[in-house]
Protein backbone atom coordinates (compact mmCIF):
# COMPACT_ATOMS: atom_id res chain seq x y z
CA UNK A 1 0.00 0.00 0.00
CA UNK A 2 2.68 2.49 1.03
CA UNK A 3 4.80 1.87 -2.01
CA UNK A 4 5.23 5.57 -2.72
CA UNK A 5 4.25 5.16 -6.34
CA UNK A 6 2.74 8.42 -7.60
CA UNK A 7 -0.51 7.60 -9.32
CA UNK A 8 -1.98 11.02 -10.04
CA UNK A 9 -0.25 14.29 -10.81
CA UNK A 10 -2.06 17.59 -11.10
CA UNK A 11 0.08 20.41 -12.44
CA UNK A 12 -0.76 24.07 -12.33
CA UNK A 13 -4.49 23.85 -13.13
CA UNK A 14 -6.16 27.12 -14.04
CA UNK A 15 -9.85 27.53 -14.74
CA UNK A 16 -12.01 30.59 -15.24
CA UNK A 17 -15.73 30.88 -15.84
CA UNK A 18 -16.08 34.17 -17.64
CA UNK A 19 -14.36 36.79 -15.52
CA UNK A 20 -14.34 34.60 -12.45
CA UNK A 21 -11.06 32.81 -11.92
CA UNK A 22 -12.07 29.68 -10.01
CA UNK A 23 -8.74 27.85 -9.98
CA UNK A 24 -5.52 29.85 -9.86
CA UNK A 25 -2.84 27.28 -10.47
CA UNK A 26 -3.40 24.18 -8.37
CA UNK A 27 -0.72 21.48 -8.22
CA UNK A 28 -0.38 18.33 -6.14
CA UNK A 29 0.59 14.68 -6.38
CA UNK A 30 -1.22 11.65 -5.08
CA UNK A 31 0.44 8.40 -4.10
CA UNK A 32 -1.22 5.06 -4.60
CA UNK A 33 -3.49 4.20 -1.70
CA UNK A 34 -3.60 7.74 -0.35
CA UNK A 35 -6.75 9.47 0.78
CA UNK A 36 -6.68 13.22 0.36
CA UNK A 37 -9.42 15.44 1.72
CA UNK A 38 -10.09 18.87 0.27
CA UNK A 39 -11.74 21.25 2.67
CA UNK A 40 -12.51 24.92 2.57
CA UNK A 41 -15.33 27.41 2.10
CA UNK A 42 -17.93 26.81 -0.59
CA UNK A 43 -17.22 28.35 -3.96
CA UNK A 44 -13.46 28.09 -3.70
CA UNK A 45 -13.07 25.69 -6.61
CA UNK A 46 -12.89 22.32 -4.85
CA UNK A 47 -15.56 20.68 -6.99
CA UNK A 48 -14.27 22.35 -10.12
CA UNK A 49 -10.83 20.96 -9.33
CA UNK A 50 -12.21 17.42 -9.15
CA UNK A 51 -14.06 17.89 -12.42
CA UNK A 52 -10.91 19.15 -14.08
CA UNK A 53 -9.17 15.90 -13.13
CA UNK A 54 -11.46 13.71 -15.27
CA UNK A 55 -12.08 16.56 -17.70
CA UNK A 56 -15.78 16.84 -17.04
CA UNK A 57 -14.65 20.44 -16.94
CA UNK A 58 -11.89 21.38 -19.34
CA UNK A 59 -9.13 23.26 -17.51
CA UNK A 60 -7.85 26.41 -19.24
CA UNK A 61 -4.25 25.62 -18.38
CA UNK A 62 -2.21 22.93 -16.73
CA UNK A 63 -2.11 19.17 -16.98
CA UNK A 64 -3.31 16.05 -15.25
CA UNK A 65 -1.35 12.79 -15.34
CA UNK A 66 -2.59 9.34 -14.43
CA UNK A 67 0.51 7.22 -13.92
CA UNK A 68 2.73 8.13 -16.87
CA UNK A 69 -0.09 9.07 -19.22
CA UNK A 70 -1.44 12.56 -19.73
CA UNK A 71 -5.19 12.84 -19.18
CA UNK A 72 -5.45 16.38 -20.44
CA UNK A 73 -5.06 16.55 -24.24
CA UNK A 74 -5.99 12.88 -24.51
CA UNK A 75 -8.66 13.65 -27.13
CA UNK A 76 -11.03 10.77 -27.68
CA UNK A 77 -8.95 8.68 -25.32
CA UNK A 78 -10.47 10.58 -22.42
CA UNK A 79 -13.12 7.87 -22.10
CA UNK A 80 -10.39 5.38 -21.30
CA UNK A 81 -9.11 7.60 -18.49
CA UNK A 82 -12.60 8.26 -17.16
CA UNK A 83 -13.00 4.51 -16.61
CA UNK A 84 -9.84 4.61 -14.51
CA UNK A 85 -10.92 7.72 -12.58
CA UNK A 86 -14.19 7.01 -10.79
CA UNK A 87 -16.44 9.78 -9.60
CA UNK A 88 -19.09 10.04 -6.92
CA UNK A 89 -21.36 13.08 -6.93
CA UNK A 90 -23.09 15.09 -4.24
CA UNK A 91 -26.51 14.35 -5.69
CA UNK A 92 -25.66 10.74 -6.60
CA UNK A 93 -26.79 11.07 -10.24
CA UNK A 94 -27.96 7.47 -10.33
CA UNK A 95 -29.64 6.61 -13.62
CA UNK A 96 -33.31 7.08 -12.74
CA UNK A 97 -34.68 4.50 -15.14
CA UNK A 98 -32.44 1.64 -14.00
CA UNK A 99 -32.50 -0.53 -10.90
CA UNK A 100 -29.56 -0.39 -8.50
CA UNK A 101 -27.86 -3.36 -10.08
CA UNK A 102 -28.46 -2.12 -13.63
CA UNK A 103 -26.91 1.18 -12.58
CA UNK A 104 -23.76 -0.66 -11.58
CA UNK A 105 -23.56 -3.01 -14.53
CA UNK A 106 -24.52 -0.78 -17.45
CA UNK A 107 -21.08 0.75 -17.96
CA UNK A 108 -19.48 -2.68 -17.62
CA UNK A 109 -21.62 -3.91 -20.49
CA UNK A 110 -21.74 -0.85 -22.72
CA UNK A 111 -18.29 0.61 -22.09
CA UNK A 112 -16.15 -2.35 -21.09
CA UNK A 113 -17.99 -4.78 -23.39
CA UNK A 114 -18.41 -7.31 -20.61
CA UNK A 115 -20.89 -10.17 -21.06
CA UNK A 116 -24.20 -9.46 -19.25
CA UNK A 117 -23.85 -12.47 -16.99
CA UNK A 118 -20.31 -11.59 -15.96
CA UNK A 119 -21.28 -7.96 -15.47
CA UNK A 120 -24.19 -8.96 -13.23
CA UNK A 121 -21.92 -11.02 -11.02
CA UNK A 122 -19.42 -8.21 -10.72
CA UNK A 123 -22.17 -5.69 -10.05
CA UNK A 124 -23.61 -7.88 -7.30
CA UNK A 125 -20.19 -8.18 -5.74
CA UNK A 126 -19.75 -4.40 -5.73
CA UNK A 127 -23.21 -3.92 -4.23
CA UNK A 128 -22.28 -6.44 -1.54
CA UNK A 129 -19.17 -4.37 -0.76
CA UNK A 130 -21.30 -1.33 0.00
CA UNK A 131 -23.98 -3.35 1.78
CA UNK A 132 -26.64 -2.82 -0.90
CA UNK A 133 -27.00 -6.33 -2.25
CA UNK A 134 -30.53 -6.73 -0.95
CA UNK A 135 -31.61 -3.57 -2.75
CA UNK A 136 -30.29 -4.66 -6.14
CA UNK A 137 -33.68 -4.72 -7.83
CA UNK A 138 -34.89 -1.38 -6.48
CA UNK A 139 -35.06 1.85 -8.46
CA UNK A 140 -33.21 4.98 -7.31
CA UNK A 141 -36.46 6.67 -6.25
CA UNK A 142 -37.06 3.82 -3.83
CA UNK A 143 -33.72 4.28 -2.05
CA UNK A 144 -32.79 6.63 0.76
CA UNK A 145 -30.08 9.19 0.03
CA UNK A 146 -27.49 7.13 1.87
CA UNK A 147 -28.45 3.99 0.00
CA UNK A 148 -28.40 5.81 -3.33
CA UNK A 149 -24.96 7.19 -2.57
CA UNK A 150 -23.67 3.73 -1.67
CA UNK A 151 -25.01 2.39 -4.97
CA UNK A 152 -23.23 5.20 -6.78
CA UNK A 153 -20.01 4.25 -4.97
CA UNK A 154 -20.53 0.65 -6.14
CA UNK A 155 -21.08 1.97 -9.67
CA UNK A 156 -17.74 3.78 -9.54
CA UNK A 157 -15.98 0.77 -8.00
CA UNK A 158 -17.26 -1.59 -10.68
CA UNK A 159 -14.98 -0.01 -13.27
CA UNK A 160 -11.93 -0.96 -11.16
CA UNK A 161 -10.69 2.63 -11.05
CA UNK A 162 -7.19 3.66 -10.00
CA UNK A 163 -8.58 6.71 -8.23
CA UNK A 164 -12.04 7.71 -7.07
CA UNK A 165 -13.08 11.35 -6.84
CA UNK A 166 -15.74 12.11 -4.23
CA UNK A 167 -17.46 15.44 -4.76
CA UNK A 168 -19.11 16.29 -1.44
CA UNK A 169 -20.57 12.80 -1.19
CA UNK A 170 -22.46 13.43 2.04
CA UNK A 171 -23.52 17.05 1.69
CA UNK A 172 -27.05 16.09 0.65
CA UNK A 173 -27.50 13.63 3.52
CA UNK A 174 -28.66 13.85 7.13
CA UNK A 175 -26.16 12.87 9.87
CA UNK A 176 -27.32 9.28 10.11
CA UNK A 177 -27.13 8.66 6.36
CA UNK A 178 -23.84 10.55 6.27
CA UNK A 179 -22.41 8.05 8.74
CA UNK A 180 -23.37 5.01 6.66
CA UNK A 181 -21.75 6.51 3.56
CA UNK A 182 -18.61 7.58 5.42
CA UNK A 183 -18.26 4.10 6.85
CA UNK A 184 -18.22 2.64 3.35
CA UNK A 185 -15.64 5.23 2.30
CA UNK A 186 -13.51 4.51 5.33
CA UNK A 187 -13.57 0.83 4.49
CA UNK A 188 -12.45 1.63 0.96
CA UNK A 189 -9.62 3.82 2.20
CA UNK A 190 -8.41 1.10 4.53
CA UNK A 191 -8.57 -1.39 1.67
CA UNK A 192 -6.07 0.78 -0.17
CA UNK A 193 -8.25 2.64 -2.66
CA UNK A 194 -6.80 5.97 -3.75
CA UNK A 195 -9.37 8.64 -3.02
CA UNK A 196 -9.72 12.39 -3.41
CA UNK A 197 -12.55 13.62 -1.24
CA UNK A 198 -14.09 17.07 -1.22
CA UNK A 199 -15.90 17.21 2.08
CA UNK A 200 -17.04 19.30 5.00
CA UNK A 201 -16.89 16.30 7.34
CA UNK A 202 -13.94 17.22 9.52
CA UNK A 203 -14.23 14.07 11.60
CA UNK A 204 -13.86 11.94 8.49
CA UNK A 205 -11.02 14.08 7.15
CA UNK A 206 -9.07 13.87 10.39
CA UNK A 207 -9.54 10.15 10.93
CA UNK A 208 -9.21 8.82 7.37
CA UNK A 209 -7.20 11.27 5.29
CA UNK A 210 -3.46 10.92 4.83
CA UNK A 211 -3.34 14.54 3.83
CA UNK A 212 -5.70 17.45 4.17
CA UNK A 213 -5.64 20.31 1.69
CA UNK A 214 -7.29 23.53 2.68
CA UNK A 215 -8.47 25.46 -0.36
CA UNK A 216 -9.53 29.04 -0.56
CA UNK A 217 -9.96 31.46 -3.47
CA UNK A 218 -8.90 28.86 -6.04
CA UNK A 219 -5.63 27.91 -4.38
CA UNK A 220 -4.38 25.31 -1.96
CA UNK A 221 -3.63 27.61 0.94
CA UNK A 222 -2.51 25.12 3.54
CA UNK A 223 -1.80 21.41 3.53
CA UNK A 224 -0.51 18.69 5.77
CA UNK A 225 -1.42 15.57 7.71
CA UNK A 226 -4.39 15.53 10.10
CA UNK A 227 -1.94 15.54 13.03
CA UNK A 228 -0.31 18.69 11.68
CA UNK A 229 -3.72 20.22 11.25
CA UNK A 230 -4.57 19.60 14.86
CA UNK A 231 -1.26 20.63 16.41
CA UNK A 232 0.73 22.83 14.07
CA UNK A 233 0.35 26.51 13.58
CA UNK A 234 0.68 26.17 9.84
CA UNK A 235 -3.07 25.57 9.52
CA UNK A 236 -4.02 28.93 10.95
CA UNK A 237 -6.62 29.97 8.40
CA UNK A 238 -8.00 26.46 8.21
CA UNK A 239 -8.46 26.25 11.95
CA UNK A 240 -10.27 29.52 11.81
CA UNK A 241 -12.61 27.99 9.20
CA UNK A 242 -13.22 24.85 11.24
CA UNK A 243 -13.63 26.91 14.38
CA UNK A 244 -16.52 28.68 12.80
CA UNK A 245 -18.11 25.30 12.29
CA UNK A 246 -17.60 24.34 15.90
CA UNK A 247 -19.15 27.51 17.20
CA UNK A 248 -22.26 26.89 15.17
CA UNK A 249 -22.40 23.29 16.24
CA UNK A 250 -21.86 24.36 19.82
CA UNK A 251 -19.07 21.82 20.30
Amino acid at each position, binding site marked *: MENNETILKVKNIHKSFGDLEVLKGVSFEVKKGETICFIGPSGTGKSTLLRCINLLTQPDQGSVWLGDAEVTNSGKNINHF*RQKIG*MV*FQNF*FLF*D*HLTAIRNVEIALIKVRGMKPKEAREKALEELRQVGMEEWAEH*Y*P*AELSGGQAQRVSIARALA*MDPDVILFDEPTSALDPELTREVLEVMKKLALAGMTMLVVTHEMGFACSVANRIMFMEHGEIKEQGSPEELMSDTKFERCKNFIGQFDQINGD
Partner: protein
Amino acid sequence: MDQAEFLFQILLPVLMEGMIVTIKLIVFTAPFGLILGILVAVGRVYGSKPISLLCKGAVGFIKGTPLLLMLFILYFGLPSIGITLSAFVASLVGFIMCNGAYNSEYIRGAISSIKEGQIIAAQALGMTRMQAVRHIILPQALIRAIPGLSNEFIYLIKYSSLAYMLTVIELTGAGKMVATKYFEFTEVFMIVGIGYLILVTITTIAVMLIERKVAVPGMTQSGRNMLDIL
Protein backbone atom coordinates in the same frame (compact mmCIF):
# COMPACT_ATOMS: atom_id res chain seq x y z
CA MET B 1 -83.73 -2.75 -49.50
CA ASP B 2 -84.03 -2.46 -45.74
CA GLN B 3 -81.57 -0.86 -43.38
CA ALA B 4 -80.03 -4.08 -42.08
CA GLU B 5 -79.37 -5.34 -45.57
CA PHE B 6 -77.74 -2.04 -46.56
CA LEU B 7 -75.64 -2.06 -43.43
CA PHE B 8 -74.39 -5.62 -43.49
CA GLN B 9 -74.39 -6.46 -47.18
CA ILE B 10 -73.16 -3.24 -48.66
CA LEU B 11 -71.74 -0.72 -46.21
CA LEU B 12 -69.73 -2.79 -43.75
CA PRO B 13 -67.85 -4.92 -46.31
CA VAL B 14 -66.70 -1.78 -48.14
CA LEU B 15 -65.81 -0.02 -44.90
CA MET B 16 -63.84 -3.05 -43.76
CA GLU B 17 -61.70 -2.86 -46.87
CA GLY B 18 -61.19 0.84 -46.24
CA MET B 19 -60.37 0.13 -42.62
CA ILE B 20 -57.65 -2.30 -43.66
CA VAL B 21 -56.05 0.39 -45.84
CA THR B 22 -56.28 2.88 -42.96
CA ILE B 23 -54.64 0.41 -40.60
CA LYS B 24 -51.90 -0.25 -43.16
CA LEU B 25 -51.23 3.48 -43.44
CA ILE B 26 -50.99 3.80 -39.68
CA VAL B 27 -48.93 0.67 -39.09
CA PHE B 28 -46.42 1.55 -41.82
CA THR B 29 -46.16 5.17 -40.71
CA ALA B 30 -45.84 4.84 -36.93
CA PRO B 31 -42.51 2.98 -36.58
CA PHE B 32 -40.75 5.12 -39.18
CA GLY B 33 -42.30 8.24 -37.70
CA LEU B 34 -40.96 7.25 -34.30
CA ILE B 35 -37.46 6.52 -35.61
CA LEU B 36 -37.44 9.78 -37.56
CA GLY B 37 -38.66 11.62 -34.48
CA ILE B 38 -35.87 10.17 -32.35
CA LEU B 39 -33.19 10.96 -34.94
CA VAL B 40 -34.39 14.52 -35.46
CA ALA B 41 -34.74 15.19 -31.73
CA VAL B 42 -31.25 13.86 -31.00
CA GLY B 43 -29.86 15.76 -33.99
CA ARG B 44 -31.42 18.96 -32.72
CA VAL B 45 -30.25 18.65 -29.13
CA TYR B 46 -26.90 16.90 -29.51
CA GLY B 47 -25.96 17.35 -33.16
CA SER B 48 -23.37 19.76 -34.49
CA LYS B 49 -24.57 23.23 -35.33
CA PRO B 50 -25.37 22.55 -39.02
CA ILE B 51 -27.22 19.31 -38.20
CA SER B 52 -29.11 20.96 -35.40
CA LEU B 53 -30.13 23.83 -37.69
CA LEU B 54 -31.12 21.45 -40.47
CA CYS B 55 -33.37 19.48 -38.12
CA LYS B 56 -34.86 22.67 -36.72
CA GLY B 57 -35.53 24.02 -40.19
CA ALA B 58 -37.13 20.82 -41.43
CA VAL B 59 -39.40 20.59 -38.40
CA GLY B 60 -40.32 24.25 -38.75
CA PHE B 61 -41.20 23.74 -42.41
CA ILE B 62 -43.37 20.70 -41.76
CA LYS B 63 -45.09 22.26 -38.76
CA GLY B 64 -45.68 25.43 -40.70
CA THR B 65 -47.41 24.01 -43.77
CA PRO B 66 -50.69 22.09 -44.09
CA LEU B 67 -50.22 18.35 -44.36
CA LEU B 68 -52.62 18.26 -47.28
CA LEU B 69 -50.42 20.68 -49.18
CA MET B 70 -47.42 18.46 -48.57
CA LEU B 71 -49.32 15.42 -49.81
CA PHE B 72 -50.26 17.31 -52.99
CA ILE B 73 -46.63 18.23 -53.56
CA LEU B 74 -45.50 14.63 -53.02
CA TYR B 75 -48.16 13.15 -55.29
CA PHE B 76 -48.89 15.78 -57.92
CA GLY B 77 -45.71 17.85 -57.78
CA LEU B 78 -42.84 15.37 -57.65
CA PRO B 79 -43.60 13.68 -61.03
CA SER B 80 -42.53 16.96 -62.68
CA ILE B 81 -38.99 16.37 -61.40
CA GLY B 82 -39.10 12.73 -62.35
CA ILE B 83 -40.15 11.15 -59.07
CA THR B 84 -43.44 9.33 -59.39
CA LEU B 85 -44.91 7.84 -56.24
CA SER B 86 -48.06 5.77 -56.01
CA ALA B 87 -50.85 7.44 -54.06
CA PHE B 88 -50.33 5.05 -51.16
CA VAL B 89 -46.55 5.61 -51.00
CA ALA B 90 -46.92 9.38 -51.37
CA SER B 91 -49.35 9.34 -48.45
CA LEU B 92 -46.96 7.25 -46.38
CA VAL B 93 -44.05 9.61 -47.07
CA GLY B 94 -46.14 12.62 -46.13
CA PHE B 95 -47.45 11.00 -42.97
CA ILE B 96 -44.00 9.81 -41.87
CA MET B 97 -42.58 13.32 -42.32
CA CYS B 98 -45.43 14.91 -40.42
CA ASN B 99 -45.52 12.25 -37.69
CA GLY B 100 -41.72 12.35 -37.35
CA ALA B 101 -41.62 16.13 -37.07
CA TYR B 102 -44.19 16.29 -34.29
CA ASN B 103 -42.76 13.25 -32.51
CA SER B 104 -39.36 14.94 -32.51
CA GLU B 105 -40.83 17.89 -30.63
CA TYR B 106 -42.28 15.65 -27.92
CA ILE B 107 -39.01 13.76 -27.60
CA ARG B 108 -36.97 16.96 -27.58
CA GLY B 109 -39.11 18.29 -24.76
CA ALA B 110 -38.61 15.06 -22.84
CA ILE B 111 -34.85 15.16 -23.41
CA SER B 112 -34.58 18.67 -22.07
CA SER B 113 -36.56 17.67 -18.97
CA ILE B 114 -33.83 15.20 -17.98
CA LYS B 115 -31.39 16.56 -15.45
CA GLU B 116 -27.87 17.18 -16.68
CA GLY B 117 -26.42 14.98 -13.95
CA GLN B 118 -27.57 11.91 -15.84
CA ILE B 119 -25.32 12.56 -18.82
CA ILE B 120 -22.47 13.80 -16.59
CA ALA B 121 -22.58 10.58 -14.55
CA ALA B 122 -22.60 8.51 -17.74
CA GLN B 123 -19.60 10.39 -19.12
CA ALA B 124 -17.77 10.06 -15.81
CA LEU B 125 -18.06 6.28 -16.27
CA GLY B 126 -16.32 6.50 -19.62
CA MET B 127 -19.31 6.57 -21.94
CA THR B 128 -19.01 8.70 -25.05
CA ARG B 129 -21.61 11.40 -25.44
CA MET B 130 -23.51 9.29 -27.96
CA GLN B 131 -23.40 6.20 -25.72
CA ALA B 132 -24.75 8.30 -22.88
CA VAL B 133 -27.54 9.61 -25.10
CA ARG B 134 -28.41 6.15 -26.35
CA HIS B 135 -28.29 4.19 -23.11
CA ILE B 136 -29.16 6.79 -20.49
CA ILE B 137 -30.92 9.82 -21.97
CA LEU B 138 -33.12 8.31 -24.68
CA PRO B 139 -34.67 5.51 -22.59
CA GLN B 140 -35.70 8.07 -20.00
CA ALA B 141 -36.85 10.60 -22.60
CA LEU B 142 -38.99 8.04 -24.42
CA ILE B 143 -40.73 7.01 -21.21
CA ARG B 144 -41.52 10.63 -20.51
CA ALA B 145 -42.60 11.30 -24.10
CA ILE B 146 -45.20 8.53 -24.15
CA PRO B 147 -48.20 10.81 -23.50
CA GLY B 148 -47.13 13.16 -26.30
CA LEU B 149 -46.22 10.39 -28.70
CA SER B 150 -49.52 8.60 -28.14
CA ASN B 151 -51.36 11.85 -28.76
CA GLU B 152 -49.52 12.15 -32.05
CA PHE B 153 -50.39 8.56 -32.89
CA ILE B 154 -54.06 9.39 -32.37
CA TYR B 155 -53.72 12.39 -34.66
CA LEU B 156 -52.16 10.07 -37.21
CA ILE B 157 -55.19 7.78 -37.09
CA LYS B 158 -57.36 10.73 -37.94
CA TYR B 159 -55.23 12.53 -40.51
CA SER B 160 -54.69 9.27 -42.34
CA SER B 161 -58.08 10.16 -43.90
CA LEU B 162 -56.24 12.82 -45.92
CA ALA B 163 -54.87 10.00 -48.07
CA TYR B 164 -58.32 9.96 -49.65
CA MET B 165 -57.43 13.28 -51.29
CA LEU B 166 -54.67 11.38 -53.16
CA THR B 167 -57.23 8.77 -54.29
CA VAL B 168 -56.27 6.19 -51.65
CA ILE B 169 -59.51 4.48 -50.72
CA GLU B 170 -59.14 4.21 -46.98
CA LEU B 171 -61.91 4.28 -44.38
CA THR B 172 -63.17 7.78 -45.10
CA GLY B 173 -62.83 7.33 -48.85
CA ALA B 174 -64.71 4.05 -48.76
CA GLY B 175 -67.48 5.70 -46.76
CA LYS B 176 -67.64 8.59 -49.20
CA MET B 177 -68.07 6.21 -52.13
CA VAL B 178 -70.96 4.34 -50.54
CA ALA B 179 -72.56 7.51 -49.22
CA THR B 180 -72.56 9.16 -52.64
CA LYS B 181 -73.85 6.11 -54.42
CA TYR B 182 -76.74 5.44 -52.01
CA PHE B 183 -77.26 9.00 -50.84
CA GLU B 184 -76.96 8.01 -47.16
CA PHE B 185 -74.54 10.60 -45.85
CA THR B 186 -75.45 10.91 -42.19
CA GLU B 187 -75.71 7.23 -41.50
CA VAL B 188 -72.56 6.26 -43.41
CA PHE B 189 -70.33 8.96 -41.97
CA MET B 190 -71.54 8.23 -38.46
CA ILE B 191 -70.46 4.63 -38.89
CA VAL B 192 -67.15 5.75 -40.36
CA GLY B 193 -66.77 7.96 -37.29
CA ILE B 194 -67.43 4.97 -35.03
CA GLY B 195 -64.68 3.13 -36.93
CA TYR B 196 -62.15 5.85 -36.03
CA LEU B 197 -63.46 5.95 -32.49
CA ILE B 198 -62.77 2.23 -32.14
CA LEU B 199 -59.20 2.65 -33.44
CA VAL B 200 -58.57 5.56 -31.07
CA THR B 201 -60.02 3.69 -28.09
CA ILE B 202 -57.87 0.65 -28.78
CA THR B 203 -54.84 2.93 -29.00
CA THR B 204 -55.69 4.70 -25.76
CA ILE B 205 -55.98 1.43 -23.86
CA ALA B 206 -52.81 0.07 -25.46
CA VAL B 207 -50.92 3.20 -24.45
CA MET B 208 -52.06 2.85 -20.86
CA LEU B 209 -50.88 -0.73 -20.81
CA ILE B 210 -47.52 0.28 -22.27
CA GLU B 211 -47.20 3.11 -19.78
CA ARG B 212 -47.88 0.73 -16.95
CA LYS B 213 -45.38 -1.76 -18.33
CA VAL B 214 -42.54 0.74 -18.63
CA ALA B 215 -43.42 2.71 -15.52
CA VAL B 216 -40.39 3.36 -13.34
CA PRO B 217 -40.88 4.32 -9.70
CA GLY B 218 -40.17 8.00 -9.31
CA MET B 219 -40.29 8.69 -13.04
CA THR B 220 -43.89 8.01 -14.01
CA GLN B 221 -47.10 7.38 -12.14
CA SER B 222 -49.66 8.52 -14.66
CA GLY B 223 -50.06 5.19 -16.48
CA ARG B 224 -50.92 3.24 -13.39
CA ASN B 225 -53.35 5.79 -12.05
CA MET B 226 -55.22 6.20 -15.31
CA LEU B 227 -55.69 2.46 -15.64
CA ASP B 228 -57.06 2.24 -12.11
CA ILE B 229 -59.71 4.79 -12.99
CA LEU B 230 -60.75 2.71 -15.97
